[in-house]
Structure formats: structure tokens, C-alpha cells
């Protein structure tokens, strides 16, 4: 009898997966219907939009826009009525899993609950219908909100200056590396390298390359922190910056951070904090106090923005005094009379602008509302609870450590990494298979195969907004899948069974890319 068979519950979908080569129930006409795109629906002459009447004297359009500048055929957009559009997209939406309906422990992404209050306040006309070129004197509420958010982020990060401009985390990273470059160049130094640990998120090295610098990898010590000897060997005067997450992507807080900072600062380089994991430490410790010069925030993670199926996000940065002269423009300034302004001039060393307008203001409204709701105590509670939930789930999963051991046998922060290597060896199922079988149990799987350092990695981040019951149910599902695999590993290998589609041919998709709907010619032929 299996060691785990007492916890075995089997698939929850109510129908047995059916073992090897299982086929789902026959596809219904309804399922086929949903896989048609909007371009394959409708009919010539259907419409949803009715244009306002032409209320000005009509001038021959050829006089206004010469023929040679005109398109000869309308763009082949759909021809559909409003009810068709609504039904099409509502049905499509039902083919998505989402955070509002279920547990989403996607490590490194902080999928915490999105309060609906935020949608309501962001939708107020004074915010949502404010034009970005509105005169600052008539956008005082917005500028004050941004200024207050800057001050809050400064306090949370322990760094004095903030720019809200970057559009997401990786954009904040680009800002940070460009700032670091500008700082060194202003001192007459050409530094060409950026150190990134081998646990770093892919955006870190990609950013370094975009900023025209060279990536140098730093190793990880057996306890999951930065390998100090390797760091010492690589830190020299050619290094512009070290990019670090702390806690890092292994869920480990690097206790040597002070020493790391000393090594990096000792060679005149700057220290960059990838704030994707800020959710572990809000109100507990601050990047600025650890010695970081530049921090990015992922407002969509730590400060709970709906992730939108892949954005929008927002990636403000906070910097130390020595980096401030190079910060992007425009900047929000508070004038002596207490009013606010946007200022472009007077920052000769600024790296300039990294996007249009003032940043993703709609995200600022939500993040600011969140900070107002939680306050200092609530933010600290969020981090403490996130860490408690992660450690609890890790403890619950100790029961399956034989197959899925923690990558590091230590207390984790807000997330933790398991290795599926023994599971693969002993049960013949990979981390990917486990993830796919979890779909049948109604859970979004953790992040898989990241960080790269850990074989068959599963990065699990439950967040603070989940209940104990949810964490228990997730742990039970993992145990059930492993117990099932002890009996018949093919079940997981062919999973999922209950999803709108089953495993998709990704290799084929990349080999013969079809990235748009082929449409008939405009004349209908």
C-alpha cells in the first residue's frame, strides 16, 4: 500500500480520469462554437456603433485628404452587433481561470485579492476622465495623490526620492540600470558590467542588455543566499551595479545583505533592489536600510492591482540622494503654498523620460487606496500573514517531502521553492505534469521551472489573502496527485482532463507560427 494512499482523494471533477490515454467527453457543438474568433462571426452589414450625425457642412473628402494618402479598402474588422460582441467575449471569459474564483499561488507574482473598492475609485470621472495634458493647476487632486503615494513608497522603501513613471517592474529595472550608468558616467567612470545572481528573474539580465551593459552572473551559496566569495571575486571597478531581490526568488532572506552592500559599495558600484518580493517585508525591514541605492516596486504585486491577464502594471522606483540628480522627468513638486506642479526643467543631469505622460496613474489610484486602507499596521500585517501562510503551506507539504522536498530546509519568507526532482525520478512525473493535474483540481499551479537554479522547480506564493482552508485544500490536492501517481503516473502525464482544452502543441505553434486570423479578401472571395 502506498505511503500516501490514506490521503488519496482522486480527481475532484467527479469523473475518473480514466487512466492511460484518457479522452475527454466528446466535444459538443457548443465547445466548437466558442473556439471561433470574432472575425469568424457576424455578417456583412451588421454593426454595433452608430456614428453621430454629420453636423458640419460636408466638404469633398478628397479635398481634405488627397487620395494618395487614403486607404483603398476598409480594414477588415468584424461586422457584429452588440449582442454578438457581448456573448462572444463573455463566453471567452469563461475559458479563463481567475483569481476571483480560485487560488492562484503563482510564485513571484503576488496574486493577492484585488479589492473592488479600487476599481470604484479609479473609475471616478475626476480620475478616469482626467486628460494627461490637463494643466497642473487643474489636476491638483491627481498630483497630490501622486505626491502622497511617492511619500508613502519612500517611507516603505527607506529611500528618499521616488519616480512613479515606469510602467511595470521591468521598466523600473531599466530606469534603475540607466540611472546607475548615468551616475557613474557623471563621475567620469565607464563601468560596463552588472552583476546578477543566478537566481535572478529573466527581466534583470534582459534589462542589463537593453541598457547596453554586460551581465555577469554571481553564484548562490548552499543556504540560498549570494555566494560571497564569488561576489568578491567578481566585484571590481568595472561593475556598475548589483541587482538583487531580497528575499530572493528562492524565498530566502539573505542575512548577509549588509556585507553584500559593503562589497558592492566598496568597489564604487550601486546596489539595485528588485522589489518583486516586497510583499514579505513591508514595515519589517526596508531596502534603503539594507544599503540599496535604487528600488523598484511592482504596484501590481505588493500593492494589489488586478493583473488583467498580463497587465497593466506599474513599476515606480525609489532612489538614494546620490542617484536623485539623474531621476526621470517630469517630477512632482510641492510648492511653498502647498500646491503641486509637474516640473521638467532644472534637472540637467536627468536621464529624461522613459514613457509618455506621468505613468500608469490608474494604478497609482489603486495603490494609494490600498495604502490608505491598510495603513502602517495593515501593511505589516499583510507581510506577516503572507510569510505565515507560506510557512504554513510549506509545513503542510512536508508530508510529501519524499517527492517534493523544499529546495532549502529553512524558514521561508512569503514564498518557497520545492524541487520536483525526486518526484520525476521515482514517479516518472515532471513538475509540468503535477501543474497540469492541479488544473483538474481547480487550482492555478505555482510558478514552474523558475528559479532556474532548482531542478524541476515549483515556486509557491500563497499570499496573505488566502484562508487556512484554501491552503489545506491545496496541500491535499498535491498529496492526492502524488498518491494517484504512485498507482498510475500516466494520469498526471496526460492531464488535464477537465479544462476547455487539453495540452496544446506549443512546439508546433512555434514552428509554424499562426499569429493572426487569416481573413478572406475584402470582396468576399
Amino acid at each position, binding site marked *: 500500500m502506498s505511503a500516501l494512499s490514506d490521503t488519496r482523494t482522486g480527481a475532484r471533477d467527479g469523473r475518473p480520469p480514466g487512466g492511460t490515454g484518457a479522452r475527454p467527453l466528446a466535444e459538443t457543438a457548443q465547445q466548437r462554437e466558442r473556439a471561433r474568433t470574432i472575425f469568424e462571426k457576424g455578417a456583412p452589414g451588421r454593426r454595433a456603433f452608430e456614428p*453621430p450625425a454629420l453636423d458640419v*457642412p460636408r466638404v469633398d473628402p478628397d479635398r481634405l485628404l488627397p487620395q494618395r494618402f487614403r486607404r483603398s479598402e476598409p480594414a477588415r474588422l468584424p461586422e457584429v452587433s452588440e449582442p454578438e460582441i457581448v456573448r462572444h467575449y463573455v463566453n471567452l471569459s*469563461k475559458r479563463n481561470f481567475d483569481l476571483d474564483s480560485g487560488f492562484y499561488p503563482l510564485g513571484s507574482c503576488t496574486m493577492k485579492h484585488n479589492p473592488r473598492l479600487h476599481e470604484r475609485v479609479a473609475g471616478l470621472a475626476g480620475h478616469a476622465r482626467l486628460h494627461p*495634458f490637463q494643466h497642473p493647476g487643474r489636476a491638483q487632486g491627481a498630483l497630490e495623490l501622486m505626491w502622497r503615494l511617492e511619500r508613502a513608497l519612500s517611507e516603505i522603501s527607506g529611500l528618499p526620492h521616488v519616480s512613479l513613471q515606469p510602467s511595470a517592474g521591468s521598466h523600473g529595472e531599466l530606469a534603475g540600470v540607466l540611472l546607475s550608468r548615468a551616475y557613474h558616467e557623471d563621475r567620469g567612470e565607464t563601468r560596463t558590467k552588472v552583476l546578477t545572481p543566478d537566481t535572478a528573474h529573466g*527581466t534583470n539580465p534582459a534589462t542589463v542588455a537593453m541598457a547596453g551593459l554586460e551581465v555577469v552572473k554571481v553564484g548562490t551559496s548552499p543556504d540560498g543566499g549570494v555566494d560571497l566569495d564569488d561576489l568578491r571575486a567578481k566585484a571590481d571597478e568595472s561593475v556598475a551595479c548589483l541587482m538583487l531581490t531580497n528575499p530572493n526568488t528562492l524565498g530566502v532572506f539573505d542575512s548577509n545583505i549588509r556585507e553584500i552592500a559593503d562589497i558592492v559599495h566598496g568597489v564604487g558600484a550601486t546596489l539595485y533592489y528588485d522589489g518583486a518580493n516586497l510583499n514579505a517585508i513591508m*514595515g519589517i525591514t526596508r531596502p534603503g536600510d539594507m544599503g540599496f541605492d535604487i528600488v523598484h516596486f511592482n504596484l501590481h504585486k505588493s500593492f494589489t492591482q488586478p493583473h488583467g491577464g498580463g497587465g497593466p502594471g506599474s513599476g515606480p522606483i525609489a532612489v538614494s540622494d546620490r542617484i536623485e540628480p539623474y531621476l526621470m522627468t517630469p517630477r512632482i513638486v510641492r510648492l511653498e503654498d502647498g500646491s503641486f506642479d509637474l516640473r521638467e526643467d532644472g534637472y540637467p543631469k536627468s536621464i529624461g523620460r522613459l514613457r509618455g505622460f506621468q505613468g500608469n496613474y490608474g494604478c497609482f489610484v489603486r495603490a494609494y487606496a490600498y495604502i490608505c486602507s491598510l495603513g502602517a499596521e495593515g501593511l505589516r500585517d499583510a507581510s506577516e500573514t503572507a510569510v505565515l501562510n507560506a510557512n504554513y503551506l510549506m509545513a503542510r507539504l512536508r508530508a510529501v517531502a519524499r517527492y517534493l522536498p523544499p529546495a532549502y530546509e529553512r524558514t521561508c519568507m512569503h514564498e518557497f521553492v520545492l524541487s520536483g526532482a525526486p518526484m520525476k525520478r521515482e514517479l516518472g512525473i515532471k513538475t509540468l505534469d503535477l501543474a497540469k493535474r492541479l488544473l483538474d483540481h481547480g487550482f492555478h499551479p505555482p510558478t514552474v521551472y523558475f528559479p532556474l537554479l532548482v531542478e524541476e522547480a515549483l515556486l509557491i506564493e500563497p499570499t496573505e489573502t488566502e484562508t487556512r482552508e484554501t491552503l489545506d485544500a491545496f496541500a491535499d490536492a498535491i498529496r492526492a496527485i502524488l498518491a494517484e501517481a504512485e498507482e498510475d503516473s500516466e494520469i498526471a502525464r496526460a492531464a488535464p482532463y477537465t479544462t476547455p482544452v487539453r495540452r496544446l502543441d*506549443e512546439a508546433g505553434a512555434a514552428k509554424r507560427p499562426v499569429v493572426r486570423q487569416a481573413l478572406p479578401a475584402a470582396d468576399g472571395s
Partner: protein
Amino acid sequence: MSRYTALAPADREAMLAEIGVSSVEELFAAIPAELRLERPLDLPQGMPEQDVFAHLRELAERNVSCDDELSFLGGGMYDHYVPALVDMLMSRSEFLTPYTPYQPEISQGGLQVMFEYQTAICELTALPVSNASVYEGPTALASAGYLARLAGGEGRFVVSAGVHPHSLETLRAYARGFGAEVAVVPLRDGVTDLGAWREAVDGATAAVFFQNPNFLGAVEDAQALAAVEGPVVVAAYDPIALGILKPPGECGVDVCVGEGQPLGNRLDFGGPSFGFFAAREEYLRQMPGRIAGETVDVDGRRGFVLTLQTREQHIRREKATSNICTAQALNALAGVVYLSWLGRRGLVELAELLLQRTHYARETLCAIDGVEPLHTQPVIREFAVRLPAPVAEVVERCATRGVNPGLALREENALLVAITEQRSRADIDRLAEVLREAVAA
């Protein structure tokens, strides 16, 4: 305990026992004492939901939005009507709250939306490939610069002065990073000076960039600008103007980018919106960002996945074509829903209406004593006029009468005036009346 966490004291006790520690404090033992913040964060006390709402509403009320005045502001973002169905679909949990579709089996909705969005952008631009969105307009242009750098080598960038100033500044900041020199070609009577353009482009040019209609609203001769031998031709387009403009794919443009806000997105004081990014087939593998592709599942059913991921940062790391990860999927959803709502004929009708009203507005304003067109080029939805009085003062005078006459272009002492379908003839007449008095004052 905050209202968004759900652990009761008894839960905490039981969970700590399961972990084998006696306090939450112990879980943070790895953080050295000297790094602990030994005081509460210096932030205001948390507030109940209704108080936060009241506070955020109070801040909103101190902004003058497009609901509060008659606004002719444009310059990249426009006050188009957003149909109710866009709001409804964007606020559905299933679109609003998931993340990037890493697990395609449970993300077919989002992936198909991306595929449809890409199709719509390809149709608008007459270019064969599109990604699933980038951050917004200016970064889209700068990312095209990085594509040109990867594809075309180390040469310099030649940029029309008609490109939106934010795009130009963004391109400059990005290019300083990856090491491309930027040369700007001036305008002549509102459009890129073709002679200077041809002179500036040489064998050492990696890419050229122009915008259509350009920042001053003028329609550029895209075919003439694109007729340069060698460099990657990048053009930023207004998606609404593409309803009637010859599509960039038919003008010799290699990469077409643009600000997606006019397509069903709110103004939001500048974001979030989305940037679109389409290109010729040969650049498919150098595109930034996510791309959805069609495929089949093991049972042969049609499905969609993120494809060509070997371009991306999570696989290729420093060799990636871009660092972008979180993009603007929800805003792109609004874009494709909006385009479906407009439909094949609606987009043309909308652009034609803007063409007529914009012409009317230009004529009407230029009939005011001392007000002159800044240029005489064709315009579609926006135009610039020079004023006989200091523009900043004129804008202030108009504001006191509830009219925002447009964007002040200080250097030219001009106004950039934008028209949408929400600005009727009566609105334009009112603008003319208020402006006449403001310039005469």
C-alpha cells in the same frame, strides 16, 4: 488584522503550531536585528472602506476632468466615447484578475483575445505580424529602436521632429542605453522636411522614425518618408486615423507602433493604456513582448498559446528581444472589443466624421482675427493654430469659461486642438466664441 486577510487568532495559533514555531516573529529570524524597522511605518492610520472612498472622491473632485469642461485636449490621448460594453467586459473577474496566460489550458479566453487583438492590429496596419501589446505609445517606439538595433546593427537613428515629444525623449533615453545616436530632422510647413530627411539618411543609418499624423496633426507623406534604402523604417500611427489613412504596410513601413488609448481606453491621466507593435514578417523573431499563436490540443481542438517565447526574457535572459514581462493585456482587450464595436464600416465612418469636423473647426478658428494655421497640411483629427496673444494666458481665460481650448505649444505660441466624435459642431462654435474673446482680451 486588515480586512483583506482572513486569519482569525485561532487560525494563527494552529498554523504556528503546524510550522513548529511559537510566534510569527520567529519566522523573520533571518532578518538581522540591525536591519529591523523598530517603529511603525510613518503612514496615516488605516481607514475603513467608506472613508477611503470619501478621501479618493475628494481628490478626484479637485481635478477638472473631461466631464467638467469642454475639452479639446489631445496630443496623443483623446476623449473618445468608450462604449458601456467595454467597461462591462473589462470588469469581468475572468479578464480582470488572472495574470499572463502561462497555463494555456485554463487561459484560452485571454489567449484568444490576444490572437484577435493581433489580428485587428494587423488589419489596421496592413502588416502581417503584431504582438499582444507593449506598455504604451512612446515605449513602443523606443522598443522598435531596440528591434532595429538587434536587426540592423549599430548605426544611428534618424527621427522626424514630428514625432510626439514624449516618444522622442523616450527613444533618446533608451538609445543612450543601448548606444545609438539620435539625429532629428526638422519640419517644414508642419511636415517632415523631405530634403533634409533624405540627406540625413545614409549608409550608417540603422533606423528612421516618423509619426503619422504627426504631433502637429499633419498627415505626412508616408510613402516618401519610407522610401529610404537600408534602414528599418519605423512609424507611429494614430489607430483612429488608420480608418482612412493608407495603411503603413502599403507605404513601405517595416515596423508600425502607436498609442492604443484612443481604442476604447480611458484617459486615466495618461495610463494605463497600451502600445501596439506590428511589423513585417522578417522581424517576427525580433519582436518584443508576448505573442499568441494558434495551435491544437492533444485531441485536435483549436487552441491558443503564447508562442515564440524564445524571444523573451524568461527564456533568453540577456539575449532577449526586450525586457518586457507584465504588459497591458487588459487594455488591449478594451482595444479589440472597441474595434469590434466600431466594426469594419464604423471605423471608417468615425474617421470620416473627424475629418469633416476637424476641417470645420480649423476653418472656424482661423476665421478669428489674428488666429492662423500653424501649417496648411491635411489634418484628420487635430490641428495647430498660432495665436495673436500669449497662449498660456489664452488657455487660462478660456478655462474660466469652462472651455479647455487645447494643448499650449509655447515655443510656437500655438494651440493644438483635438476633435473627437464627442465634440459637436455646437461645441466647436462655443470654442470659437470663447477663444475669440480670449485672444481679444
